[in-house]
């Protein structure tokens, strides 16, 4: 132990939001391990239950509590914490630390900030101080001024001298609310938006360096002033597109050593001037013509870029930064990769790394896809190759956006030009397409502001594509195509005369197989023991040394996207841990650089690879594994099971757990319906339509409302509830293309039902129900978006018993070995089966945190043949406290999305509120999700006729607490008749009464309760109001269940002082 601390607190980053994803689970977990390794007593706080860092064994005490200064202060007081580590929780962690200091909590409880100090944070975050600091060391920054109003902004542009200018809000995540203004009108608009987002109501107006190269350096410094560069990175997309939205390569490729050393020297000067102890990220703009540069930004903490740099180089930045924070110097920290050197070195790469962002536009079809200074991507993929082309194609194949590689794109020439100058997520495909059409790389480079080096790399891919299309697939051509990075499927698709399997067979017969190289931080200069590999066809020798031990591979979840969040990474990591506990060697395959699963410390061997059948099969064969787990990586891995089984035919490799055939029973509607009939379990009537007429007929037969969706997409995409023939026809025309190959699935929608999620483990004989979760919203809202309560608070014991029995029957019938998730609906005392998922579900980590039972681990042990009774688990045991899951949405960042919840998932992350009292747990969950329930003010109520009587009681309680009630005509009359005093208002612009939108803008409304009537036309009517509520951050409730629960939470907030309790305390109480 270096410096003497009694107890250290690590602050996490809360839910996954755009701009802040799994990278902080990775850094926070590394930090905790790093501290405990040194013997420090460690406490962690985070509101996100889907993280590895909130596992009870990550820290001595783990708190799943709201990330507010007040609740963190309570933890500091209760635990007697004397050191707070702020740099591991992203901007959230830094902001809370700043608040703890400002509000005097640190002083009050005698705690210090450990690592980078508040003044250093301020110097890099406060624009004026940053500017002063850079000027004092002679580092150039873009001309700029901080302003607090639009008028000041216009004045600032006069000082800068030209448009365009950038508008950057101070203290926000991922550039929220920023933008580019090309003229005064745009400036007024972007600036007022930006001011609203800034925690300190301040934006920076800045000289534009649009079109310059964007370069990043990851720097570390210790208390002895030793400075090292971990990695430099080059954005393929020029300045003007946020680095989180850019394709990035590491190391920099198109800069000379002279220029790279210039940036290195500048980075070291900067980290010294800011007195940062730990890691920081410096971003530069570099003019490729004049070689002039500007310092753009410094992040005085670990960041998404540092997570990428860690994975790209093998250097554990968060771990080392944590040790520096508690006083170690770089030369005192051992380098675990070489085993006998220190952390005071700079990695040298002998491969090329490419990062590609993953955007949610497949889910949000109405959102503006243009990329800019504001982040819209939810996640990213990283790929490693020995050439740029190989790495790039691997990256594109890892995105899971239904592409095969650098796919053709159906786009007229003008639109391609538009992509070049004003990029969307499709730009790289547009460049590929332009090259396919024979455009000159030099022109493309000029228009896109890409370096021609990278354009020519894409051209190499397109040229190879042409050779493969037109030539004979000789051994030499096939080898060259594989060296270029084309997948078997890509080759098959280009040729059109063979299948992926044909290519595979031909390739294997010719002995064209990938070799595996090690990521070792030192370009092979030293013998290293990093168990971290990537594949390449650009080499002859493989470095994997097979062991004779029993081995199992776990297939990861790929990039974070809507519907496929950090929950699956949690499950994968637990899968690995369970295998290790059983003495089995573990192999992790994944391509997401943010996550804990791709920390090379987690598994025995890590493969950074695309998650496609070809790549996974190659690894399974090279490693000669005994088994593979497909159930833990969400849809990514589940979808692969059948193909893997096919590819593994004739080998000894087993797909562990539930068989692919049984998984198919659950996925295939006909087989599943047969099973339900046999088990006598109710299912909503349904049908499959191959034409519009058939769809109408089926809907008529089963009765509206119906749930419709295309058969060929998963995860709730393009899923809608329709209430009439008319709506059905609109849906069929706009949302899907129905055909013989692509039918539409139609289910009876059970309105006003309570939806229930059940997660369980089955060993073939016994079934253990890990948790039953009751949704607060009615059925019809995607379970990934729904707020849920555990244990159920509305269901009778008879219903619960019946649920447990149904679950048992289904699990045994599907011969589940491992985990299963059921989605059920309950109405009028009847239970309906919605779907069965024979795999790890999104709710596994939540339930595990709420109960203390590590479901994912036990699931794997069961797959290996253990029995539930060995762990004393059977039946169902309710918990005696409440855990509430709330979802977190990106509506603020994605203008154009209707913030109403539908069968299509929209949330990016989740939080948990845990408390012995139901309403307190809900309040904590809402606080963690950023919903600030009011304790006073005005409530605007407009509900449909069916909800009017329940709304009256809600309004009465709120009025009794002193709230002013505003209501629209119908609701108002009903309330008045039932003795609730209220003020009648109009929907926007209706008549002479006060207008609801005006009241919202004036700040008179602090809560909205709006239950839409039962058809989607009206649902869409409220769109403007909902968007406005999102922008003004007014809590918005759309169901009566939610309204009643919220009233309870408001009462708690008004009357009760919240207390904090660690998960260890909850579970000690239970066991």
């Amino acid at each position, binding site marked *: 132990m270096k410096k003497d601390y009694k107890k250290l607190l690590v602050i996490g980053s809360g839910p996954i939001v755009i701009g802040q994803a799994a990278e902080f689970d990775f850094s926070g977990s590394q930090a905790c391990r790093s501290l405990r390794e040194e013997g420090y007593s460690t406490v962690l706080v985070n509101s996100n239950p889907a993280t590895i860092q909130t596992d009870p064994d990550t820290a001595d005490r783990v708190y799943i509590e709201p990330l507010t200064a007040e609740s963190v202060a309570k933890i500091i007081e209760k635990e007697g914490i004397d050191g707070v580590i702020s740099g591991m929780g992203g901007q959230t962690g830094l902001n809370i630390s700043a608040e703890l200091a400002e509000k005097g909590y640190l002083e009050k409880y005698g705690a210090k900030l450990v690592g980078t100090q508040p003044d250093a944070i301020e110097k890099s975050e406060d624009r004026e101080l940053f500017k002063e600091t850079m000027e004092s060391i002679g580092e150039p920054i873009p001309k700029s001024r901080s302003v607090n109003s639009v008028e000041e902004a216009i004045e600032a542009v006069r000082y800068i001298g030209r448009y365009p200018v950038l508008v950057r809000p101070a203290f926000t995540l991922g550039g929220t609310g920023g933008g580019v203004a090309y003229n005064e009108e745009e400036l007024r608009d972007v600036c007022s938006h930006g001011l609203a987002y800034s925690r300190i109501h301040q934006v920076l107006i800045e000289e534009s360096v649009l079109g310059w190269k964007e370069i990043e350096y990851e720097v570390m410094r210790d208390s002895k002033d030793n400075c090292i560069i971990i990695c430099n990175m080059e954005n393929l997309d020029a300045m003007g597109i946020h680095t989180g939205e850019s394709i990035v390569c590491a190391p920099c490729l198109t800069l*000379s050593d002279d220029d790279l050393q210039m940036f290195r020297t500048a980075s070291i000067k900067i980290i010294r001037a800011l007195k940062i102890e730990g890691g920081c990220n410096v971003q530069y703009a570099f003019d490729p013509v004049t070689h002039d540069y500007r310092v753009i930004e410094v992040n005085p903490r670990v960041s998404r870029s540092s997570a990428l740099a860690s994975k790209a180089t093998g250097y554990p930045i968060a771990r080392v930064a944590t040790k520096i924070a508690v006083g170690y110097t770089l030369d005192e920290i051992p380098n675990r990769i070489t085993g006998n*050197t220190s952390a005071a070195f700079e990695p040298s790469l002998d491969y090329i790394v490419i990062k590609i962002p993953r955007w949610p536009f497949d889910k949000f079809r109405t959102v503006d896809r243009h990329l800019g200074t504001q982040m819209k991507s939810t996640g990213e993929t990283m790929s490693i190759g*020995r050439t740029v082309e190989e790495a790039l194609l691997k990256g594109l194949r890892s995105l899971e956006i239904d592409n095969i590689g650098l796919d053709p794109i159906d786009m007229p020439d003008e639109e391609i030009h538009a992509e070049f100058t004003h990029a969307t997520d499709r730009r790289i495909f547009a460049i590929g397409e332009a090259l396919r059409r024979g455009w000159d790389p030099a022109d493309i480079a000029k228009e896109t502001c890409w370096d021609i*080096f990278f354009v020519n790399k894409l051209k190499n891919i397109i040229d190879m594509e042409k050779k493969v299309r037109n030539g004979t697939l000789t051994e030499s051509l096939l080898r060259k195509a594989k060296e270029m990075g084309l997948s078997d499927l890509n080759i098959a698709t280009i040729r059109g005369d063979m299948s992926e399997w044909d290519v595979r067979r031909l390739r294997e017969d010719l002995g064209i197989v990938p070799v595996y*190289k090690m990521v070792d931080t030192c370009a*092979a200069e030293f013998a290293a023991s990093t168990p971290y590999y990537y594949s390449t066809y650009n080499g002859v020798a493989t470095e994997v040394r097979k062991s004779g031990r029993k081995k199992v591979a776990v297939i990861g979840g790929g990039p974070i996207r809507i519907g496929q969040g950090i929950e699956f990474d949690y499950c994968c990591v637990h899968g690995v841990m369970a295998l290790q506990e059983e003495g089995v060697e573990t192999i992790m395959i994944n391509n997401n650089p943010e996550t804990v699963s791709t920390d090379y410390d987690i598994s025995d061997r890590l493969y950074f690879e695309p998650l496609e059948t070809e790549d996974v099969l190659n690894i399974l064969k090279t490693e000669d594994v005994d088994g593979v787990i497909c159930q833990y990586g969400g849809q990514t891995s589940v979808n692969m099971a059948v193909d893997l089984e096919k590819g593994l035919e004739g080998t000894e490799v087993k797909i562990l757990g539930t068989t692919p055939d049984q998984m198919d029973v659950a996925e295939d509607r006909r087989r599943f319906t047969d099973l339900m009939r046999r088990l006598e379990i109710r299912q909503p009537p349904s049908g499959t339509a191959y034409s519009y007429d058939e769809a109408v007929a089926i809907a008529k037969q089963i009765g509206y409302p119906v749930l419709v969706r295309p058969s060929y997409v998963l995860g709730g995409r393009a899923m809608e509830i329709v209430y009439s023939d008319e709506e059905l026809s609109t849906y069929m025309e706009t949302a899907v293309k129905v055909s013989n190959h692509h039918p539409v699935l139609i289910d009876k929608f059970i309105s006003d039902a309570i939806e229930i999620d059940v997660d369980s483990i089955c060993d073939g004989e016994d079934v253990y129900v890990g948790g039953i979760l009751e949704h607060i919203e009615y059925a019809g809202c995607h379970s990934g978006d729904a707020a849920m309560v555990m244990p159920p608070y509305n269901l009778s014991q008879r219903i619960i018993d019946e649920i447990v029995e149904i679950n048992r029957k289904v699990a045994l019938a599907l011969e589940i070995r491992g985990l299963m998730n059921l989605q059920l609906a309950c109405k009028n005392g009847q239970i309906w089966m919605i779907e069965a998922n024979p795999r790890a579900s999104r709710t596994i980590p939540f339930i595990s945190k709420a109960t203390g039972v590590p479901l994912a681990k036990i699931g794997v042990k069961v797959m290996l043949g253990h029995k539930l009774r060995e762990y004393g688990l059977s039946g169902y045991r309710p918990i005696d406290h409440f855990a509430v899951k709330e979802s977190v949405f990106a509506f603020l960042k994605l203008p154009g999305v209707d913030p109403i919840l539908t069968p299509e998932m929209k949330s990016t992350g989740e939080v948990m509120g845990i408390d012995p009292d139901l309403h307190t747990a809900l309040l904590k969950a809402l606080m963690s999700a950023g919903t600030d329930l009011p304790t006073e003010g005005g409530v605007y109520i407009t509900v449909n006729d069916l909800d009017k009587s329940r709304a009256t009681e809600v309004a009465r309680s709120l009025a009794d607490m002193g709230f002013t009630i505003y209501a629209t005509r119908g609701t108002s009359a009903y309330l008045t008749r039932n003795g609730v005093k209220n003020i009648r208002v109009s929907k926007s612009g209706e008549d002479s009464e006060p207008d609801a939108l005006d009241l919202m803008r004036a700040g008179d409304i602090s809560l909205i309760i709006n239950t839409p009537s039962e058809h989607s036309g009206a649902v869409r009517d409220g769109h403007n109001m909902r968007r406005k509520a999102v922008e003004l951050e007014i809590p918005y409730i759309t169901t009566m269940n939610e309204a009643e629960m919220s009233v309870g939470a408001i009462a708690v907030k008004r009357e009760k002082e919240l207390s904090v309790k660690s998960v260890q305390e909850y579970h000690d109480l239970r066991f």
Partner: protein
Amino acid sequence: MKSYLVLEDGAVYPGHSFGFESEAVGEVVFCTGMSGYQESLTDPSYKGQILVMTFPTIGNYGTAEGFSQSDSVHCRAVVVREHTVHPSDSYRGKTIDEFLIENRVPGISGVDTRDLVIRIREHGTLKGAIIHDQDAIQETISKLRSMPAPSESDLVSEVSCTEIQRFDEGKEYTVGLLDCGEKSRILKNLREHFNVIMFPYDTPSDVISDSGIQGILISNGPGDPSHPNILKGPVRTVSDLSSSMPIMGICLGNQITALAFGGNTYKMKFGHRGCNQPVSYDGRIYITSQNHGFAVDENSLEGTGLIADQFNSNDKSIEGMKHRDLPIFTSQYHPEAHPGPDDTSFLFSRFLNVIKGEYR
């Protein structure tokens, strides 16, 4: 054209010829720098060597006049995984292919360079050849085995200047630069502080001491520092000058200084070549640029008056020395960088302070 890298241990790496079309023989060494390939190619210390680049794609930003460290390419051949045909146009220079053709040096691409590096790491530096005729492989292997190591020839004489050159910068002090194959950046750094007189490596010490300089820098260079011509040339010169003026040594200059005071040098297994070598000095860590295959033996320094005061953090080998009583200091690494980090460029201003008598 098909091309083969053949090694004395019998290993053969097939690839494709690029650059100048010719065959080559040399000592195969690897460099782990990720950028600065042109600086390395033109570094005279690579004389006699076949240079393997560990970074897999070389030539990405082309070449430009200002990057060269001498007026030609010195390594005998270059081995890469891939050379870039269409580089970035930011520096508006020739491609690496054109650059090598112009310098009449062959390259081989398509080699599994990582596997090759692991081989060198495990076996130590190997003699190798680049040939075009597949049928000549066996014969080449036997030739390589019987051939003396290229580092044993008098390589310094091939790269040193042959005439005394003066660079008057109007500075207060004038120093000498004993050119054993200096990188032009050393001269450039010196000229920022001094007037410089550059001497051929075999200039007699009386000529040097009569030239009126106030100090001398012994440069980097190729080959074995204990080669007879080095012993009777620069080593004797340092020995003669050591009591009369401040001396700074870089790389080979560090080894020459050790030999001049009676120390010994040895050949390393595969040396240090790259831009990321950590050096521990005065309780701090500096990241340095290096290119050497020989090192000073620490045990041999006892009683010489030289004190090793800088060490490589990885293998603890000597990275720098100073003299107990005399104004003499050296570094095994390259403070002039190019390629590599500028962390230790302060050594040049220190040399000025030493000459001024302000630093000891």
